């Protein structure tokens, strides 16, 4: 009986998989045409947020004990399937050791713990919302975390005047997709709390594609010949904050990082 049931289930599932595979385009999301802005571009305006654990680790990971035992289950590592296409991050052999060292000393080294500007793409999937303000010449993205901000130039591409934490962004439309080329990123940012890192040769190409009224698909292709053997890609949906009067609030985290950064320099109490 049991064997018959499982055989049937397997057969059914196999048939369904074959059927799906045979249907053209079934594996891809159906083409979605986004509402337009007054000047005819896909309208990306809104407050968005990733709902995943990519900031904990871009790669798939099981739940784990948090770094501060006193916080119990409040600050344990939540599990996640990962957002890296093909799962593997193609580190050059020489870079693997640094990634491991970063991870081992994560709480002391992570720029997020220090409230430093997060860089791209990490700003997108930090566990805080961000807002897209879309104009013709520029698209401004304001991130709640650390008050980070970037202005994407939608005109003729311009060259960065220097390296910066959030990089230099030139954007263009490819059909439904906003494509942003990000260069001149500083080496000081990380990709996640698992210590995944890059060098100052980082080049990121982001793709924001509306996939329904309240979701976008976000992809970032990451290229850094000093750290990785080939370009690799992350992808995830972003969700719109649909609640009434949704608003970014201040998360000026400097004051939350001061104990970590300066605690050892405090005046010792004289008693």
């Amino acid at each position, binding site marked *: 009986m049991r064997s018959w049931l499982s055989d049937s289930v397997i057969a059914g599932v196999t048939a369904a998989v074959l059927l799906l595979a045979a249907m053209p385009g079934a594996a891809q999301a159906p083409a979605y045409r986004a509402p337009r*802005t*007054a*000047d005819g571009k896909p*309208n990306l*305006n809104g407050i968005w947020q990733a709902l995943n654990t990519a900031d904990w680790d871009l790669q798939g990971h099981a739940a784990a004990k948090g770094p501060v035992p006193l916080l119990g289950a409040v600050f344990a590592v939540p599990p996640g399937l990962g957002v890296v296409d093909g799962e593997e991050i193609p580190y050059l052999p020489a870079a693997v050791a640094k990634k491991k060292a970063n991870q081992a000393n994560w709480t002391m080294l992570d720029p997020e713990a220090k*409230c*430093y*500007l997060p860089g791209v793409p990490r700003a997108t999937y930090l566990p805080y919302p961000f*807002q*897209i*303000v*879309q*104009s*013709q*010449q*520029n*698209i*401004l993205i*304001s991130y709640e975390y*650390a*008050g*980070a*901000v970037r*202005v994407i130039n939608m005109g003729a591409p*311009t060259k960065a*005047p*220097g390296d*910066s*934490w*959030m990089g230099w962004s030139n954007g263009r439309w490819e059909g439904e997709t906003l494509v942003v080329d990000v260069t001149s990123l500083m080496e*000081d940012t990380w990709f996640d709390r698992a210590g995944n890192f890059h060098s100052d040769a980082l080049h990121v190409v982001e793709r924001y594609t509306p996939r329904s009224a309240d979701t976008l698909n976000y992809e970032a292709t990451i290229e850094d010949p000093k750290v990785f053997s080939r370009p690799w890609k992350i992808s995830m949906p972003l969700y719109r904050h649909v609640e009434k*009067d949704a*608003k*970014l*609030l*201040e998360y*000026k985290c*400097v*004051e939350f990082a*001061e104990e970590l*950064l*300066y605690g050892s*320099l*405090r*005046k010792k109490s004289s008693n």
Partner: protein
Amino acid sequence: MSRRFLALTAALAAVILIAPLAQSPAAGQATTASAAKAWTLPHTPDGKPDLQGIWSDNTLTPFERPKSLGSKEFYTDQELAELTRRVREGRQGEQVEGAELGAANPQAIRYDLEVYGFDRTKLRYTSKRTSLIVGPEGVVPPMLPQARERNAAMAAKVKGHEFDGPEQRSLSERCILLNQIRIPMTPAANEGNLLQIVQGPGYVSLLHEIDHSTRVIPTDGRPHVPQNIRLWQGDSVGHWEGNTLVVDTTNFTSLSAYRGSSDKLHLVERFTRAADDTMTYQFTVDDPTTWAKPWTAEIPWTKTKGPVYEWACHEGNTMISTILHGARVEEEAAQKKGK
């Protein structure tokens, strides 16, 4: 080409930026009568007045009126030309009454103007006003006794503990709230002090170059966030009155005082595009726990060129650790000496 002057505050040391290349204001001359060309207010694709661009509030006009001018609210063209000439021909550091020299102010000079490219010959007035504060007084009203007491009590708490830990240092040093980015926005002692405006449907975003301070202001008539949510820069909501963007801000913290105000501060800012290269920025501050009456200032902004640089203050802040470390070293030396 002049270089843009970066910052005169002590936070300079913390800024991760090379001295940027320059953008001298695109055109300050538009206010002269000869430039009175027909100009129509541009609109965004969704029909709102278009305030977008990069703006500078740099001006020679002082915030408060010099006492000697009494209730004189405006200069004549001749007086303004004479003042401008004296500023431009003056030596570095030479004070001119009726002119806010910023970096060239004797008290403010900590850096060689040559090094920072602050060009005294480019300084100019942006209106005929004798002070940015409008009205017959032209100064901030006297502080109420209760406000003096409140501020004195706050200062007393820190006295003797200035170097104990980061919390006793100023918000500006800590890169939490730099003096130049506090709202209302007033000219800072540097040549640029850039503000970039980007508008989307239902929102106007204001990006202040200094410390990348950004406000995304909804213009859909929504109320403020609940009163118990207090924010360093307050909660801003906006609406359009004709061609003017009106922004109302409340919910400040008790620590983000503006000129000694309390968390009861209520700020109303008005942005009106006056010409292709000029925006009139007017603000009224009201705080009945600090001043007997509201007061208003008006600042013309001039359109300028980018780029707006990333001003990462906290990321390069070596000041707090250096100051605290210095204090610990001194304490240790004093202790050894005492033994």
